[in-house]
């Protein structure tokens, strides 16, 4: 023991952490936005498709969910460029990976939401003469979104935490900033205390904001 906390070097390098946090949030927001598009398209396709399409979509979902994120990150960043002739930055590579990753989780969320839309609502839509497209756009999707909001918020928070894996391919997000300070100043306990507080504060602030949105759109029981 006998360790004396000294936060001076952390504050002097705080720009590494602050910039890192902003980049973490940016990575999370972009990946989730793309993931939502993937999730919505595949979920809508899944519930109306035949067996072959369903098997392919389920295969994508199960594959992503059962493989460690760090391996997917390596595979896309170090593996993929050896077989296809494209060049991309670590950041682009990570966004692509986390988008595919969040897409797989969100397909599941949206699919179960679509299946939970009460049959009577769809029938009512038919009865007032809506086309299938209109039923999807004005009846099924809005109801599904309200049903899935709590699951969506939880997915958001966990994806924000998953951005820490980007540090393994040297994307300068928050965890990378922490490691940089760890290796350059050796104020180890201090930097991880500060970073823990930053992740906790941001995560719970996000959660609180999302809970407010949920309350605004809650489905009446």
């Amino acid at each position, binding site marked *: 023991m006998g360790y004396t906390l000294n936060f001076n070097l952390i504050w002097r390098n705080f720009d590494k952490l602050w910039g890192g946090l902003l980049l973490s949030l940016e990575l999370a927001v972009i990946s989730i936005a793309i993931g939502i598009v993937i999730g919505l398209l595949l979920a809508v396709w899944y519930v109306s498709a035949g067996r072959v399409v369903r098997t392919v979509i389920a295969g994508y979902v199960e594959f992503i969910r059962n493989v*460690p994120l760090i391996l997917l990150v390596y*595979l896309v960043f170090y*593996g993929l460029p050896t077989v296809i002739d494209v060049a991309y930055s670590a950041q682009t590579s990570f966004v692509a990976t986390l988008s595919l990753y969040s897409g797989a989780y969100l397909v599941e969320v949206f699919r179960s939401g679509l299946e939970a839309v009460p049959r009577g609502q769809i029938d009512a839509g038919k009865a007032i003469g809506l086309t299938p497209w209109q039923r999807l756009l004005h009846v099924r999707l809005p109801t599904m979104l309200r049903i899935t909001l709590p699951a969506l918020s939880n997915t958001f928070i966990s994806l924000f935490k998953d951005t820490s894996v980007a540090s393994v391919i040297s994307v300068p997000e928050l965890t990378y900033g922490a490691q940089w300070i760890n290796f350059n100043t050796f104020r180890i306990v201090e930097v991880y205390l500060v970073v823990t507080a930053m992740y906790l504060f941001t995560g719970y602030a996000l959660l609180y904001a999302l809970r407010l949105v949920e309350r605004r759109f809650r489905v009446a029981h």
Partner: protein
Amino acid sequence: MLGQIAYALPFLAQGFAVTLWVSLLVVALSLVAGVMMGVGLVYGPAPLRWVVRIFSDTIRGIPILVLIFFVYYGLPAVGIHLESFWAAVLALTLFKTAQVIEYLRGAVGSIPKGQSEASMAIGLTFRQRLAYVIFPQAFRRFLPPWINGVTDAVKGSALVSLLGITDLMHAINQVIGRTYEAMPLYILGAVIYFAVNYALSLASRRLERRFSFIRE
């Protein structure tokens, strides 16, 4: 190319054994710690409940990678020296314990209050109530999410590669370092992780169906 990979297979198998060993340790240790702390959270006095609540919310609120670095680099700084293997197991166990606490709280919370009251009425002690009334019923609610969570432990164990522990993930990266066959090896690794975790999630789904006669 195939020859090189075949040559590396025994090495990868060793790494895979480490992955399984880490996962097993984490799952077993976190089960014990999580059930004890979960009971503390549900039945303990207020200060104990606060401590467990803060522990669980803090651990679940930070990325597992940060926790691993904190334990690995932080403990030696305060004079506690653990081998990197045990530092990794400790960090992953802390993370998993927080999950087990929540599974237990959910499972025990789903048992109607009347069960507890009835067992008090017939004069069972606290331990008897838990052992004969609450746990047997809570068990079937606890099991499916817990088994499903074992896949998180297997996936999380891939992060120990960052501490230089030669698990499957690290073994794959080392073989790639020598052979430059990145894509086939990453795909092979993905297939192995997938096989283990998919089998686990099938087992959890089957159990869930097995216990589906339970109604709220």
